């Protein structure tokens, strides 16, 4: 919701439907063999280049060049004023021995594990409310948070979850004072609170995607299972879960590139990384070390670790889907 990729409703649903109807992943490849492309005359090879040239030029200046630089800086000591000095692996050695860094890395892993919640909750809600008369209205209401910038959602929940805020006060007033917690001030609880808030913000999009998936589902599966005496839990696990797997895969990917790549505004808005470093993420620490403390080399090294983590996560998701597909083929 916060990054340079929309986690928001419109594109996602379009893309999901595209996926479920099996659009070829590699564009044009197949057609090229068919040879019926109208716009591929020799002179127009260059026209094609011209169409992509503006994007490529801009990406080169504002994405690829900076990417090269951040990798280079990761191996230097650099304060932004005096020239960068090559120090080899020193920054990474420092990170390995820096106790706080392991906590920061762990924080990231815990928040990434939040994906399970961000997927499971909308999945369940979508199934439970599917087909109800008022479901469209509820789905629209659930989408409201998707329109709000993360920094604002963070602000909203800082008001709500404050020590003497409305949530705790309500709990106390109805005799559940024992459940009142320092939601954002306790170093064990804070990450769960962050996961909850991000879940609140993303649930509507997830519910919408799963509902779109459900509506394309053939009812005969469900009917057959019911005839065989499947109970609700079995139905969800053995029918809905596999049938909605394309949606789950897409939604997980969207959460990965849309939310996991940019925890920064959530953390900044909710906790500023605290208490202590209990909710500091890699990208927040890039900002603290690299920009606020002026240690551009160290900050870059942390950024490189962050890129590495995303790449590993995407590869894992890719591998998981490949393995599953292979298993489906062989069974």
């Amino acid at each position, binding site marked *: 919701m*916060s990054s*340079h*990729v929309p986690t928001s409703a*419109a594109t996602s649903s*379009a*893309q999901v*439907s595209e996926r479920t109807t099996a659009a070829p992943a*590699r*564009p044009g490849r197949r*057609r090229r063999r068919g040879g*019926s492309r*109208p*716009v591929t005359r020799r002179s127009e090879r260059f*026209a*094609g*280049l011209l*169409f992509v040239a503006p*994007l490529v030029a*801009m*990406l080169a*200046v504002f*994405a*690829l060049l*900076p*990417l090269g630089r951040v990798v280079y*800086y990761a191996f230097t000591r650099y304060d932004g004023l005096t020239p960068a000095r090559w120090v080899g692996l020193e920054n990474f050695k420092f990170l390995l021995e820096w106790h706080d860094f392991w906590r920061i890395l762990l924080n990231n892993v815990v928040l990434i594990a939040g994906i399970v919640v961000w997927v499971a909750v909308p999945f369940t809600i979508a*199934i*439970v*409310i*599917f*087909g*109800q008369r008022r479901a469209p209205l*509820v789905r629209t*209401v659930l989408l*409201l948070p998707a*329109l709000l*910038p993360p*920094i604002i959602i963070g*602000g909203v929940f*800082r*008001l709500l979850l*404050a020590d003497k805020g409305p949530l*705790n006060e309500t709990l106390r007033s109805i005799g559940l004072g024992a459940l009142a917690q320092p939601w954002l001030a306790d170093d064990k609880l804070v990450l769960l609170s962050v996961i909850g808030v991000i879940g*609140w913000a993303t649930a*509507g999009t997830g519910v919408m995607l799963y509902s779109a998936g459900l509506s394309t589902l053939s009812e005969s599966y*469900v009917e057959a299972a019911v005839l065989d005496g499947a109970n*609700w839990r079995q139905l969800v696990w053995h029918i809905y879960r596999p049938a909605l797997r394309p949606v789950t895969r897409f939604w997980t990917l969207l959460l990965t590139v849309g939310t996991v790549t940019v925890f*920064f*505004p959530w953390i*900044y808005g909710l906790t500023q990384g605290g208490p202590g470093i209990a909710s500091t993420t890699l*990208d*927040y620490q*890039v*900002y603290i070390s*690299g920009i606020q403390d002026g240690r551009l080399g160290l*900050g*870059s090294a942390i*950024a490189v670790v962050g890129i590495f983590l*995303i*790449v590993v996560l995407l590869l894992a998701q890719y591998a998981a889907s490949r393995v599953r597909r292979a298993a489906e083929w062989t069974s």
Partner: protein
Amino acid sequence: MNARIGLRRPLPALVMGLCTLAVVLPLLWVVRVALKPTDDYIGDPGSFGGGWTLENFGHAWSNGGIGDALFNSLRIVPLGAVLATVLATLAGYGLSKMLFPGRRFVFGIAVATMTLPLAALVIPLFDEGLRLGYVDSRFGLSLIYATLFAPWGTLFLASYFRGLPDELLESAQVDGAGTLRAFWSIAVPLALPAIATVLILNVFLQWSELILALVMLPDSSKQTITVAIAQFSGQFRTGGPLTAAGMIMAAAPVMVVFLLGQRWLRAGVTAGAVKG
């Protein structure tokens, strides 16, 4: 469907009720706090009671800098969103309807940029920006946004253009139209709903962006609306009502864009969905 599988009636109703409350109550609470005199709030931040006032909005606007920040965001975001959409439309068309050497490479860098954490680019962009002079330049930030928010739109529009029948473009060329003409007079009008979707979502994404805005515009007179909100909570620790009023004003423009663009968005979605 659920009735048939023996899911008892109260459960769906209960879930729908809880979902609605879970979304509506927090938002209502913010509105309530924004309308509360600061003194009443500090005394009892967890109660719905207390007086009612509108002056928080005025304070947030002028003293809190929300007014200036809105103006800054309005100078940065629409331009950035339009540029991103132009880049995405051109590149999306090129990638889907034309063959040229290096096409897969272009595809690759678009995907790579999309998956790159924004924080990873912040340090080199700041450093480079200091040298080339686009730090503290609102136009510079527009260009950065235009670039980093173009790749997803490119992929989205490429998949849309791919769905347009080649025969259409072919017939235009038979009639003597050049490549540009086929693009401009046929492909673009047909893809308008999808292009509008990209534009609207870009407005929203760029409006929400924080880390680049925070780093690239250190001069506080140039800060964007998200940065203003971020600073707000720091400056006015006790000022729940001011923060709440500021947040409402910050969210209002995006809400308006969405209300106005809803019809277009829906058209974009259905068109994208039918496309296949």
